[in-house]
């Protein structure tokens, strides 16, 4: 048994922490995360030059990683700085392209930005009920909340092709893309296709999509752990500094115990993500991904709400960094299936 990172992953973590910490100071992060194009194209370039995307794909696909733990290391660091770059789309696109055996040099180098359109307005989590379809090489339909869609060059889109799900590639220039900022910063888009030219990437793509979603869940959960860890440390630091009634509020036992409860939930979160990352790509991947997403949805709400409450008014302000961490942690629950959705998946599979 060994829960240490390998030397390579430790180096990756160190290099990302150093670089991202400099690049995404909170003021700069908030500036780019809430103004078009809702990320920082120059810093996206620098991030990809660090090889962050190569860590997300296996060697056979031209990458240098691709295991659950590689994904986890990258996204935990992104979470620590609330990085608004569209890395999730790149990861999920890479999983799909790996399954298809497609060349992904342009994706991994960061030269071409990919976004993945799965969910729809009336089918946000459950892909059985999507209506986007392809006929004679033309795609029609609408994808909602396409993360990173506002900055994408290419979309990989789940569509009904006859009876089964398939993945098609559509150029952003062939779609109608309406980008916007999200509540917690960074961008997404409503993407509408009207008889747009679509290139088949993968037929019978159900299993590949499930793998891409599982990888996305490992990524989001790792991001949440990074963000929760930072927010918790910020809260504990504040408890030590803020004085009321003549002493630091951290000397009040009621707050001490609540800060410990947060810590307990974060440790549980870290554990379930390790399990989900270990199982990624294996036969039990979906089960453990769902467990992780459910636990982190619950832990995230506790950590975010308690952090705000224990800070008091200051964490209700835009100016205080903690408020942005709380928003991100809460909103992660609604990406790729929420607490309840994944609870049912675990229950039904048992």
């Amino acid at each position, binding site marked *: 048994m060994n829960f240490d990172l390998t030397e390579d992953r430790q180096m990756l973590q160190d290099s990302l922490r150093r670089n991202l910490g400099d690049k995404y100071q909170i003021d700069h992060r908030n500036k780019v995360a809430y103004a078009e194009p809702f990320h920082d194209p120059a810093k996206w370039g620098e991030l990809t030059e660090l090889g962050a995307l190569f860590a997300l794909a296996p060697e056979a696909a031209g990458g240098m990683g691709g295991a659950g733990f590689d994904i986890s290391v990258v996204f935990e660091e992104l979470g620590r700085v609330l990085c608004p770059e569209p890395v999730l789309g790149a990861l999920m696109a890479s999983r799909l392209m790996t399954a298809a055996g497609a060349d992904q040099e342009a994706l991994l180098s960061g030269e071409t930005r990919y976004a993945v359109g799965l969910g729809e307005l009336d089918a946000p989590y459950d892909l059985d009920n999507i209506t986007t379809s392809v006929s004679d090489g033309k795609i029609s339909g609408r994808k909602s909340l396409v993360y990173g869609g506002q900055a994408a060059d290419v979309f990989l889109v789940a569509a009904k092709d006859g009876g089964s799900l398939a993945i098609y590639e559509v150029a952003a220039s062939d779609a109608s893309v309406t980008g916007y900022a999200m*509540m917690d910063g960074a961008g997404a888009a409503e993407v509408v296709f009207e008889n747009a030219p679509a290139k088949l990437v993968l037929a019978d793509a159900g299993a590949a999509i499930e793998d891409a979603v599982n990888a996305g869940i490992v990524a989001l959960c790792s991001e949440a752990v990074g963000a929760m860890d930072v927010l918790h440390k910020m809260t504990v630091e504040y408890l030590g500094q803020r004085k009321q009634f003549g002493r630091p509020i951290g000397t009040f036992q009621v707050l001490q115990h609540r800060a410990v409860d947060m810590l307990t939930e974060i440790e549980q979160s870290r554990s379930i993500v390790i399990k989900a990352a270990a199982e990624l790509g294996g036969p039990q991947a979906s089960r453990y991904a769902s467990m992780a997403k459910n636990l982190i949805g619950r832990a995230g709400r506790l950590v975010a709400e308690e952090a705000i409450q224990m800070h008091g008014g200051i964490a209700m302000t835009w100016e205080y960094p903690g408020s942005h961490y709380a928003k991100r942690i809460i909103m992660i629950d609604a990406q790729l299936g929420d607490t309840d*959705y994944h609870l049912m998946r675990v229950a039904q599979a048992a």
Partner: protein
Amino acid sequence: MDLNFTPEEEAFRQEVRDFFAENLPEDIRDAVKNGGELGKEIIERYHAILNKKGWLATTWPAEFGGPGWGPVERHIFDEEAAFAYAPRIVPFGLGMLGPVLQKFGSKEQQDHYLPRILDGTDWWCQGYSEPGAGSDLASLKTRAVRDGDEWVINGQKTWTTLGQHADWIFCLCRTDADVKQQEGISFILIDMSTPGVEVRPIKLIEGGHEVNEVFFTDVRVPYGNLVGEENKGWTIAKYLLTHERTGIAGVGFSMLELEETRELAKKVMRNGKPLSEDPLFAARVAQAEIDLEAMKLTNLRMLFTAQKNGAPGPETSILKIKGTVINQEFKDLRRRALGPNAAPFPGSLDGSNLDVAPAGNANNAARYFNNRKTSIFGGSNEIQRNILTKTMLGL
């Protein structure tokens, strides 16, 4: 035991309901429904509508121009106002300063300020919290020094709600630094247009602007702007903390949220069915409904006690704690119901025909985050627990 309202009270409820149906303008109702920020114009127009009817100052006795209601009538009014999607009455002049002047103010102060509160001439805001004095309010540092016929005021207040619209601010100021904290505080009225008063906006977590910082630099106001006795301001502050607290559970607002949550769940789809048919979501709603049902009775029991004893007791802190938590749960459910479609920043999709949330729900995430304030302000839920520990448990 009789859980029914009297026929007179039921008739009053109908009267209030009819009043709102006939007099609340559609644009105001829609603005409340959509849950965004209400501008000054809407609030002033709404206040004027109530004032015309004589129902604006819900806590004032008839002698000062109020309707002279008891706790039960106020409760009925609050509920019906919530059900009608009426805005909340801005409380600083009407719910706070008014009662203070009625109890502690001079005849001249009452005659001058009270009518101006009613007719909207003066918009008041509250100068209590400071950066270093939140839960520990008595440690406030804003200094007022007497200089002949004037006070000279220096310091800073914060979390000043709607201070950007205010003409006047009532402040707790330190007037004696050499005595026990609570014994050196005075309650002083300050015209916001006095030189040296500066208001700076605070942007909130969800991006809105409702609170401000207010800075005072050598601000000179007449000595007569003191309310009550010098150095007795803490008594006034405590009076306000216990005055008319029966409305703080916000039961009407939570009942409305329950209905809104149910309606929303019928309109959004999950796993190929309306969310209302999802057993887990239905269970979450039912859980919140059960808590609310008990809260309704807890609230009525405390109303009854207040009616009987003439004043609410310290147990109203229970209403603040549980009322805010229940309302926050509904805010969570309405955000959760939308799934990822709660994510667009408010206003992002306006005018695009690409709305992802059913009408009236595009601000659900913003509302959820904004509403976290309710367990922090007005004496945080932790402070309410301290009050209950002392008063109810005797510990």
